[in-house]
C-alpha cells in the first residue's frame, strides 16, 4: 500500500480525536482501517491512550467541599462586614472633594491673607493650599495602607492555620 495513505490515515486518526474530521474523511478512514492492519494498530493504540487517560481517578479528600464551603462563607461574611465601611469612606471623600472645590477660592484668599500677615514667602502659603487640597487623598492612602496591612496579616494567619 502507498506510504502516503498510511501517513494520511495516521494524521486522520489523531485529528479525529483532537478536533474531529469530516464525514467523508471518516468514511475513508474506516475503509482504510479495515484493509490496513498497521494503521488499525495505530488507531487502537490511540484509543487505548485516551481511554487510559479517561480511566484515571483521584480519591477526594474527606469533606473537602464542606470545609471549602465553610471557609468561603466565612470570607463572604468578612467581606460583607468590610463593605459598608468602604462605602462610608468613599462617600466622605466625595463630600470632602466637593466641599474643597466649592470653597477653593475662599481658602486661597484666606491663606494669602494669612501668609501676608505672617510675612511668609508666597511659596509657603501656596504649598499650604496644595496640602489642604491633597488632604482627602492622603487620608485615603493612609486607610488603604492600613487595610492592606490587615489583609496581609489575615493571609499569614490563614497560612499558619
Amino acid at each position: 500500500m502507498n506510504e502516503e495513505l498510511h501517513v494520511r490515515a495516521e494524521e486522520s486518526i489523531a485529528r479525529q480525536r483532537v478536533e474531529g474530521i469530516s464525514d467523508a474523511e471518516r468514511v475513508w478512514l474506516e475503509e482504510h482501517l479495515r484493509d490496513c492492519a498497521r494503521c488499525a494498530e495505530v488507531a487502537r493504540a490511540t484509543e487505548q491512550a485516551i481511554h487510559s487517560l479517561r480511566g484515571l481517578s483521584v480519591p477526594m479528600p474527606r469533606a473537602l467541599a464542606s470545609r471549602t464551603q465553610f471557609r468561603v462563607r466565612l470570607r463572604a461574611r468578612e467581606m460583607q462586614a468590610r463593605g459598608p465601611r468602604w462605602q462610608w469612606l468613599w462617600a466622605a471623600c466625595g463630600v470632602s472633594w466637593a466641599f474643597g472645590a466649592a470653597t477653593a477660592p475662599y481658602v486661597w484668599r484666606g491663606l494669602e491673607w494669612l501668609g501676608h500677615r505672617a510675612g511668609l514667602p508666597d511659596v509657603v502659603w501656596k504649598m499650604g493650599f496644595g496640602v489642604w487640597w491633597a488632604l482627602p487623598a492622603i487620608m485615603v492612602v493612609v486607610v488603604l495602607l492600613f487595610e492592606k496591612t490587615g489583609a496581609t496579616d489575615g493571609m499569614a494567619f490563614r497560612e499558619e492555620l
Partner: protein
Amino acid sequence: MSATLAYANTNRAIATAGPMYLFSTHMADENKALAQGLRRRDPELLDRLIEEYQYRLFRYLAYITGNHERAEDFFQETWIRVLERGHQYDGKYKFESWLFTIARNLVIDWQRHKKPQSLDALIDPDEGAPMEFAAEDDASPLDLVLLGERGARVQASLGQLPAVYREVLLLRFQEDMQLEDISRVLAIPLSSVKSRLYRGLDALKKVLAGGAE
C-alpha cells in the same frame, strides 16, 4: 410589544437554526445567571458550584501540583478567589474555563514565589509561558493521588511526558474541554493547543507502548 417581537424573533431563529441555537442560548442564559449570582456573592450559588465542580477541580489540581495536600490548599484558595473576583466573570465563556484559569494561575504564582531562581527552567520551549508541574523524575506524589495498578502505570507514563503536554491532554481527554476553552485556560493560541495535543498524544502512545513491552 417589543418583548413579543423579541419572542417571535427568538422562535424564528430557533426554527431556522435548530436545537444547537436552543442549546447555546440556554448556555448563554445560564452563564449570565451565574455571572449575576457571582457578582452578588450568592452563598447558595457558591455552595452549589463547589459541590458541582469539586471532583474535576481537585483532580486537575492534584495532577498539576502532584501533591494531595497542596491540591487541597489550592482547591480552597481557588474558591476564595471565585468569591472575591466573582464580579470579573462576565458569563461570555464557560464558567469552568474561568475556574480552571484561576486555579492554574494560583499554582503558577505559587511556583514563582517558591522558586524565583529557577524561573528560566519553567519556560515552555514552544510558547515561552512559565509552567511547571511535579518534577518529571519524581513520581511518588502522583502515586499518592492515583489508585490501582493500571492507573499507576498510566500515571507513570504520564509522568514521563513534558508537563505542557500532560496538562493539555488532561484538559482535553479527562475534563472533556473544548479546544477553545483549553486555549482560554492556558492563555495560548488555538493552534498551539492543537499542536500540543498532537505531540502529547503521540508521546503518550509511545510511552504507554514502551511500558507494555
